[in-house]
């Protein structure tokens, strides 16, 4: 590449654009790095969604305040307090939120700031989970898998932990287990999908017409194809809601335990998890992004990304001592992350 650049540069005239890549030691991203980049992309999407006009209006603060309902006072009071501040200073606060998310996304994508950005994303996600999502409706009983419970933003934090580029990676059969170790990673998967299974059995999901009403409500303001999909699905769930909730709970439970089973079963579990994530994303109305009022893509894409991180690889990832990810003049490891 450098010799091509030198050779091209000797040709006469400025019209010859070399366009040669002046890259040195760029290590192609491995599985974990690609997952980190996908996470960065979701954060960037989150940031540009936060720049929407609705987020600068009173409606945003009212939406945040609404998450306090049903929560214990120790949880609800800070939510109401923060919603009041946002209502009074909507422009400044929302701009700060958006630029923080933009910085997190770009920070994860740019290798030198990866760890800093992942750490910041965990802290930010935990704060938003409390003040912005009311802990995902877990304590209020209003949450269910179909409306984003236990909160999309907590999955950001979970992904950041699982994809952390530690100095010493553990041997693991999937990318999500490199930092925490496969056993801890499996435990986290079990907790997440197991909790989704439990939430599916709560009245917010299992009560007659609850699931159908939830999905039909998502159709408002959507493009035609999504609106008709949600309306039809909502109509079906209205008459079969309780049975579907039980089936959903069983499927979620199967997904939860699949990572503890053999490789073929684990792969089947991951595929099932991705299918469930796609189904939930549709019930969530794609996070409301197409209505102009969605703050984030909601849990569907994040659950799918998480599932990919647990895909059992053909050959287990070895334990390694990793250099920093930055491609500098110093030699770097073959892996990108």
């Amino acid at each position, binding site marked *: 590449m450098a010799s091509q650049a030198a050779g091209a540069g*000797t040709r006469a005239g400025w019209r010859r654009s070399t366009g040669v890549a002046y890259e040195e030691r760029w290590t192609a991203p491995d599985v974990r790095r690609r997952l980190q980049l996908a996470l960065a992309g979701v954060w960037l999407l989150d940031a540009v969604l936060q720049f929407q006009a609705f987020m600068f209006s009173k409606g945003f603060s009212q939406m945040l305040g609404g998450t306090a309902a049903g929560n214990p006072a120790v949880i609800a009071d800070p939510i109401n307090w923060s919603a009041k501040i946002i209502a009074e200073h909507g422009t400044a606060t929302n701009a700060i939120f958006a630029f923080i998310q933009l910085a997190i996304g770009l920070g994860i*994508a740019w290798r030198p700031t990866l760890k800093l950005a992942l750490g910041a994303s965990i802290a930010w996600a935990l704060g938003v989970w409390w003040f912005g999502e009311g802990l995902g409706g877990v304590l209020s009983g209003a949450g269910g898998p179909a409306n984003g419970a236990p909160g999309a933003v907590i999955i950001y934090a979970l992904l950041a932990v699982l994809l952390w580029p530690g100095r010493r990676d553990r041997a693991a059969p999937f990318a999500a287990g490199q930092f925490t170790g496969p056993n801890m990673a499996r435990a986290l998967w079990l907790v997440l999908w197991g909790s989704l299974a439990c939430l599916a059995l709560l009245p917010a999901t299992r009560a007659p017409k609850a699931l159908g009403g939830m999905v039909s409500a998502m159709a408002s303001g959507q*493009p035609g194809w999504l609106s008709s999909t949600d309306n039809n699905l909502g109509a079906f769930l209205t008459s079969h809601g309780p049975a579907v909730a039980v089936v959903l709970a069983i499927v979620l439970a199967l997904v939860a335990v699949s990572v503890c089973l053999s490789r073929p079963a684990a792969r089947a579990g991951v595929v099932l998890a991705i299918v469930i994530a796609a189904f939930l994303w549709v019930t969530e109305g794609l996070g409301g992004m197409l209505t102009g009022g969605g703050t984030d893509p909601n849990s569907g894409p994040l659950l799918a990304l998480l599932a990919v991180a647990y895909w059992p690889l053909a050959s287990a990832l070895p334990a390694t001592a990793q250099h920093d990810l930055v491609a500098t003049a110093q030699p770097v490891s073959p892996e990108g992350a």
Partner: protein
Amino acid sequence: MAGPSWLAWIFASVMIATSGYCLIRLAASWRRHRPTDHHVDATHVLMGVAMAGMLVPRLRVFWTGGWEVVFAVGAAWFGWLAIREFRGQPTMGGRPGHHLQHVLACGAMLYMFLAVATVAKGAAGGSAMGGMAAGGAHFPTLALVLAAALIGYTVWTADRLSSLAPVAALAARSAPVPVLAGAVAGGGAGLADAGGQGAGSTPHGDGQAPAAPGRQVPLSPRLAACCEIAMGVTMGYMLILML
């Protein structure tokens, strides 16, 4: 409902700055014979100006329909380069997949201008982004897909950013061009000329002519990548505003 006007001004300012910088790159490349990707820089100049005009109507230049032609041609041009790259034919440089990125960007610009023109017909007298955001664009799903794809390329570019060589390193690698002792005696003929030496240049005692300062050093690849990142984020913002 359009976004805050101050936010539009911020993004427009960034786009104007990016456009101005790319124009400077083109001028510097021409005057100092320093390599750069001229097609990309020229496209960035046009995109920056176009996006600034969409964000802040008083910055709009060009006649109605003009930008659509520009970006349709741009998409076709980069599409042709991408096809040549796929077939293994020479494509005037650029890293693999780079042309596809610009096909996407030009396509997104074309979509935005067509969408604005369609909505503006029904919202007479509205500003570009305001009327578009108020009425919503046709095919909002396409806007979301384009935004997601552009964000993906932005992330990919940011990942490669730290591996791009700084100009100082590229300059250090610009080796002096070796010349034949006899050929240089007449005043810089032969390889000395090929190395960009002017007539009458004095070779070193070891038979090597000094490299023309900056002659073969490319313009900053890192700043070029930063321009792409800034444009990707801004374009994503504009597409989301159309939902």
